């Protein structure tokens, strides 16, 4: 795995983890305006990073597979590999 790909995947994991944390926090603090605003910010950052990753390196989600003559989903390594 090249360095730029790793770096972008790590960034996706970081912003996604921020969302994981906010989701749990908002479940029990649904009126917290700061958390609601931060959620919107991270949601946008995650979408942009996922789009960039998918375009450059392939899909992380199975409804994000680009048109091609080969089913890319089965080609890339899995997370445990």
């Amino acid at each position, binding site marked *: 795995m090249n360095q730029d790909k790793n770096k972008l*995947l*790590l960034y*996706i*994991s970081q912003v*996604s*983890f921020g969302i*994981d*944390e906010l*989701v*749990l*926090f908002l*479940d*029990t*603090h*649904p009126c917290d305006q700061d958390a609601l605003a931060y959620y919107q910010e991270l949601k946008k950052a995650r979408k942009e990073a996922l789009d960039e990753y998918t375009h450059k390196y392939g*899909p*992380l*989600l*199975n*409804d994000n597979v680009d048109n091609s003559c080969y089913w890319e989903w089965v080609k*890339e390594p*899995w*997370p*445990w590999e």
Partner: protein
Amino acid sequence: MWNYERRLQYPVNITKPNAKAAQIIISQYGGPDGEIGASMRYLSQRYSMENRKAIGTLTDIGTEELAHLEMVATIVRQLTKDLTPEEIKASGFDKYYVDHTLAIWPTAAAGIPFNACEFQSKGDTITDLYEDMAAEQKARTTYDNILRLIKDPEIADPIRFLRAREVVHFQRFGEANREDCSKSEHAQHNH
């Protein structure tokens, strides 16, 4: 409905085989306080849960536990995939190997298979949320025990992440429990 995302919640990059460590860590896959029991507990409890915030918390933590299950399996897989037959025999991993080769199978470290009796789904808001808080502490203790037994930083790093999540989940279940209808402002005003 669930969607799979092709990445781990937190990275796992283990470069050296270690059958002893794998045999300990697999308890967090299929052991009494492991991630499969955690996920099944929360996802099963939510249907009869009456507290709205707790339903959300059970759904989202139950989902996160599936990601933890994948991380634990990845740790075990990376620790075992390059073992030699000699290492398998010398480490005592042969007793697992004979039945499962190098596949991942839900068992406790001492060989007891995963069993749904390791968790409860009781249909009582207070009972279930206290069970969930206790479950998070039991899982946290198990990760603490793993960290006492295993010092390799490549293994300890993702284990520390998983341990920290147990603490956050305990906090969220505690907050959901405070929202229980018997303790809500509305109920107190009626007294």
